[in-house]
Each structure stands twice: as structure tokens, then as C-alpha cells.
């Protein structure tokens, strides 16, 4: 269960080689910038195609080059929280939140708009346009939008990096609540050691050596299983 990843991608001058499996509630991906953390999330989301390998989440195969499986991004049920939020500027907050919800099959909707508003404290923002939100508010809306799309797992790309200390603390509490209450596996990119040790049940280090990024499993939780 959890993330089962074994991928290879040749890009630019270097390669990304990542091989790990994790059953932790929250798996942190750490490593220096340029080591391919975001590319790895993009591969799990289906936005970047690995040259070879296999990606499975909770036993469901999303990509398998040997078996010829490559689900398109819109069929992966992934909740991707981007570093730059990526709210749709021409739709107000409620329409942003409901974008994925409206596309999801009714049986895939496991959370409602009012539940998301309560969880994230964004009920008062529904009529606003994204341009009128602060960074912390945008981040909450982006998380809510991902949850409402019927996501079965979450990908979070440095969700705290562009926030001030106070907002960081607030969002960190929210992420802990999502991790503990919702039962969605989370793959979480960060290079902040404190953040990672507080949130993650397992840490995967993506290190760049000789242009090759290897995922090394530095297991913390008892569920983690190293295979790199």
C-alpha cells in the first residue's frame, strides 16, 4: 500500500532514477534543488512520462512501461497541490474548488464543499477571485480543490515554501490533520529538515551525484521498506 515507485527519466544533461516504496501516511521527498523532486511528482501525476519503470499507488498501477500502462493525468485521481497554487484566475474561489468535483463521478466524491470549507476555514472566500487572495488563502483553496476532485492520494510540492512563519504554522497543522484524518497517502516535497521530520513517516532522499538522482530510502517509520 502507499507509493510504489520505480522510474527512470533521461532529461537534459542528467537522469532521474528513483526507486522506493512507502506505506507511510506522509512520505517526504527531500533533496537539493534540481535533483528532480518536482519532476518525480509530475511523473506520478502523469504530467511527465518516465522513460521506463512502474508507478503504483495503493496497489493501483498508474504507469508500467513493461505492461504498456500509462493512465492519462485526468484518470489518475491524484490531488496535486502545486508550489505556485495554479488557481484558475478567471473563476472565483467556489468555481475553483468545484472544478474537479464537478468532473468526478458521484461515487468518487468523498468530501463535500461545506466539509472542505470547514476543514480549511475558507467559507468566507467563496465569492472572491483568486487574484484577491493572500498566499495562505490561495494555498488553502488549492488544497481544497485537490481534495474535492475525488483524489485518492495527494502530491504536495513545497506547500509551505512561499508563506511567512505564521501561515506556515497554520498550514502545517492543516496538513497534519489531513494526514491523520483523511487516510490519503501523501507524497510531500520539501527541503526543509524541520518540516520533514515533523510531518513525514518516511523520508526519501533524492540526491544528485554525477548527474544521476537516486532515491535513497531513509526510513523513519516502521512501515517504510527500503529497496533502493
Amino acid at each position: 500500500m502507499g507509493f510504489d515507485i520505480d522510474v527512470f527519466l533521461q532529461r537534459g544533461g542528467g537522469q532521474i532514477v528513483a526507486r522506493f516504496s512507502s506505506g507511510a501516511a506522509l512520505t517526504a521527498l527531500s533533496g537539493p534543488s534540481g535533483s528532480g523532486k518536482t519532476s518525480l511528482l509530475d511523473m506520478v501525476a502523469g504530467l511527465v512520462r518516465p522513460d521506463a519503470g512502474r508507478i503504483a499507488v495503493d496497489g493501483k498501477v498508474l504507469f508500467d512501461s513493461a505492461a504498456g500502462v500509462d493512465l492519462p493525468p485526468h484518470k489518475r485521481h491524484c490531488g496535486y497541490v502545486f508550489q505556485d497554487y495554479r488557481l484558475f484566475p478567471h473563476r472565483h474561489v467556489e468555481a475553483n474548488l468545484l472544478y474537479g468535483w464537478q468532473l468526478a463521478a458521484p461515487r468518487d466524491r468523498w468530501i463535500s464543499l461545506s466539509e472542505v470549507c470547514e476543514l480549511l476555514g475558507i467559507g468566507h472566500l467563496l465569492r472572491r477571485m483568486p487574484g484577491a487572495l493572500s498566499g495562505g488563502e490561495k494555498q488553502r483553496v488549492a488544497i481544497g480543490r485537490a481534495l474535492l476532485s475525488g483524489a485518492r492520494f495527494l502530491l504536495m510540492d513545497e506547500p509551505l515554501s512561499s508563506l511567512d512563519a505564521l501561515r506556515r504554522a497554520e498550514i502545517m497543522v492543516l496538513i497534519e490533520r489531513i494526514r491523520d484524518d483523511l487516510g490519503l497517502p501523501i507524497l510531500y516535497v520539501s527541503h526543509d529538515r524541520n518540516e520533514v521530520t515533523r510531518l513525514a513517516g518516511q523520508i526519501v532522499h533524492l540526491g544528485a551525484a554525477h548527474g544521476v538522482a537516486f532515491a535513497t530510502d531513509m526510513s523513519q517509520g516502521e512501515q517504510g521498506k527500503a529497496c533502493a
Partner: protein
Amino acid sequence: MTAALSTGPITAEEWGIVSLSLRVSAVSVLGAAPLGFGVAWLLARGRFAGLVVLDALVHLPLVLPPVVVGWLLLLGFGAQGPAGRLLADWGVTLMFRWTGAALASAVMAFPLMVRAMRLSIEAVDHKLEAAARTLGASRARVFATITLPLAMPGVLAGLVLGFARSLGEFGATITFVSNIPGETQTLPLAIYAALQTPDGEQAASRLALIAVGLSLAALVTSEALSRRMGANVHGL
């Protein structure tokens, strides 16, 4: 030309010229819009070998002498032209008709339209489209709900710009469909005809004033739409 007072109300004859001009421009722009958008999309997003050639072809009417465009249309769509003969089988004649004037205007306005549309498509952030994909939207739905709405102000600006360019079309039109009052005599052609007539200067100046007003209105509209596009794209 009737002897009209320079301050008097617009005469029926002038209305006829203006309404023909508006009809020719509207038909040319609306007819060319779907193809224009398709080409703009290809130029903005396409990855194929002939892209440079397509780009050059699209921009050709911008740099060719309009009389050459008109002559090429005559060769292609005239009674002996391949396209002309094909259309004749369907009972359609473009030569010496207002529809031919619309075709000439469309060809001349095409580069401007495509340019504005292409810029607006290029300005749409790929990252937003990727986000929509992860939220469960197919490529077609991403286009309809993200790309097109975000590009729409630029697309509309392209239409208005094309419309303004069509209103001013002269060289290709007069070469292809001649200068026939009531059929192909649009505003610029009527001004030209008035200037060729003894004592026609007053009539020409009245028509010129109308042309200035229409063009200004089109440009102001186009500018307003472009501003809205900027606000939309940088709203994040």
C-alpha cells in the same frame, strides 16, 4: 454622387455604402475566424517541420502588394481559376460580387487576426492547463474551460482588428471584384470613386470622416479587450 452638404445628415446613398462595408467586413471576419483560430492554435502550440513555412504563408498578405493578392484571387477564384470553376459547379460566383469583396478582405485581414489570436493563446499558462488535467479534465475540457476562456479577450481583439482591417481594404478588393456601386463598392472604393469625379471632394470628405469614426471605434474596442486579457492572465 449627389451633392450633399458637408454638415447634413447621412444620405441614403452613404448609408448604403456604409452598410455594404459593414456587411462585407462582418462576413469576412466571421468566415475567416474559425480557420484563423485553428492556424493561430497551430502556430502557438504546434510542433511540426512546416511551422516556419505556415507562419510565412499566413503573413504573406501583410507584405505583398494588395494588388498582387487581388490578382492571385482572380487567378484562383476567377471564371477560369481552379477554385472558381469548382465553386461555379456549386452555383457560387465570387467575381464582381460582394461575397468576393468579403473573400479579398478576409485574406488581407487574416494575418492580423491570426497574430492577435496566437499571442493570446501563447499567453495562456501551460501550468494552469496541467493543473486542470490533474483535477480530472480531459484535453478537450481543458481547452473549453481553461484555454479558450483565458484566450477569449485576445481572440475578440483579433476579430475587431480584422474587422477594422477589412473596413479599410482597397487594393485586393478593387483588383478582384472591381468597383461596382451597390455590389462591391465599399467605403474606401466609394471614396476613391468620389475623388475621381469632378467636384466629388465634398462627398469624399464626408465618407472619409465616417471611415475615421468606424476605424477609431474598432481600435478602441480592440484596445479595451486587450487590457482585459492582461488583467485576466495576470490575475493570479
